[in-house]
């Protein structure tokens, strides 16, 4: 599944990121394969979403989250 569909409170592992313009930046920010991602509450209207990775909080748009393939672990 993609991170776009992820529900608040669930935890995922990053499997891969589809090639797109933000891929390099996302990886540099720590979204590498195998990284644990926890979905945090999003902005009032559901977009952008917020995730917790590597002990910090990152906001990203759902359209971009669609490019991030994840596997649910909790």
């Amino acid at each position, binding site marked *: 599944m993609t991170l776009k569909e992820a529900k608040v409170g669930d935890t995922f592992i990053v499997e891969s990121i589809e090639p797109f313009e933000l891929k390099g930046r996302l990886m540099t*920010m720590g979204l*590498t394969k195998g*990284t644990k991602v926890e979905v945090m509450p999003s*902005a009032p209207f559901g977009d952008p979403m917020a995730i917790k990775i590597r002990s910090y909080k990152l*906001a*990203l748009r759902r359209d971009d989250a669609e490019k991030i393939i994840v596997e649910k672990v909790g």
Partner: protein
Amino acid sequence: MVDLPGTYSVSARSPEEAIVMDFLKNNKMDVVVDVLDSSNLERNLILTLQLLEEGIPLLIDLNMQDEAKKRGLTLNKAKLSEVLGMPVVETVGRRSDGVKTLLSVFTTEVMEKYQPSDMIKAHIENVNSIRNSGKSDEEIEEAIIDARYAVINNIVTEVVTLNRTVVSVSETLDKYLANGILAPFLFLAILYIVFYITFEWVGQPIADFIDELVSGPITEGATAFLEGAGVSEWLKAMIVDGAIAGVGAVLTFVPLIFILFFCLSFLDGTGYMARVAFITDPFMRRVGLTGKGIMPMMMAFGCAVPAIMGARALDSEKDRLTAILVTPFLTCGAKLPIMALFAAMFFPDNAANVVFLMYIIGVVAAIFAAKFLGATIMKDKGSTFLLELPPYRLPDIKTVLLETWDKGKGYLIKAGTIIFVASVFIWFLSNYNMSGMTEEMSESFLATLGGAIAPLFYFHGFSTWEAGAAAISGILAKESVVSTMGVLYGVAGEIDAEAAAEEASMFLNSGMGAAFTSLSAFAFMVFSQLYTPCVTALGTIKKEAGGFKWMIFAAVYTFFLAWVVSLLVYQIGRLLGF
């Protein structure tokens, strides 16, 4: 010792990163002090690895240990030194105050004793083999990032212990400030408080004080001094009526602008501005901008120049250009006196509402322009939004003051340079013609110039040479619109636009009251709100947007939009019988 901008990595994705990368490439360093945020070690270590890969000797400085402790994290300093092979020290305090002392201990000789650990050596070899693997640049970059984080995972496992899970204050605050349906309303409330502090509570009294100082003791003192020195009448007039009056009028806005920037820098320091970007992104995106553009937009209510420079922080070229091109529509500190004066003169019963309406017109024009630019010249370019939401903290007041100064100093420089020159220039234009100095302003260069563009506003209801002259001087500096009108209509004394209500009657009794109807005054306000940015802003656009053509474009399209909207306002108003 050289202090480089804070950055998470060196990959030239942001201006800060580019500066750091450039410096590292072009300079030979004895030692680099790598200041790490202990509460966010994983992200910070990326830069550490990149520096080690370049073979640069590092002194690791674990900063913000208190923050880490609050989050239930313990860091093993000795272990970190062992796994990296580099010396590790701790400092407290937000800025690296102790760095100079550190450097006297960790001299080049001492640093030579440290060698990268075997793990780091293996990592460097690994990175080199990836670089030489002959894959595509993209694949190589991604493989290297993966390799770095693999090492970081190992380091963190060895060095960091999580003692207990802490429900952080930030999460609780975010429930209200960033997540719930209340969040946008809380933002509006905070925005209101910022504006109240800026314009009513702190900024205004200081502005009044400076105004009194300039129009009273300073003008009188200068006049007395110049008369005592026996200078000629024209030189005295040029200095007192031109330079002092012009620069003085600008100085009254300086406190307003500094207070606004102080509030915004403070909010930024608390981490709240990142939340504002987060909650406003859906709205901003709909109009062709990004949530990150909200900070420059808010600065534009003080002065467009730092706002345009602030657009650097936006990620994509489209976002940056759009923000640069639409911020000048907003009501900057220098446009406010125009609005305040005209509103007080022609709409005495609704002055505050009319001024507020002008702010709204500016915002609507900015939104409209952003949509338009997004649908035309920037159609094929994408907008992006990736933003760290840092934990809330009480900002370090020194940092806030430094940032305030950094954003506001441009305005002070403007007062001393361009406004000074513009004031003298306008004074000259309004007092001279081809045959020398003239008593009659209506025969001056300014009258000729104003008269030449006045026909442009034939259908706008204000095709007088005075309005034309004011509009021209407003391109030099918006502050000049009101002062030019004051000079042209012969209103005595210093123009104190903030105390507009009292001054308004003076203006009304002059010829200005008869030159405008309420409707044409309103049309003139709309025009002033939207037309060509001042030369300082245009110069900044040229620098930040990267080219002369963008500056010309910004100057022309704003003028055109202002002309059309103002025309519509006047003609529709007439049809409606105003």
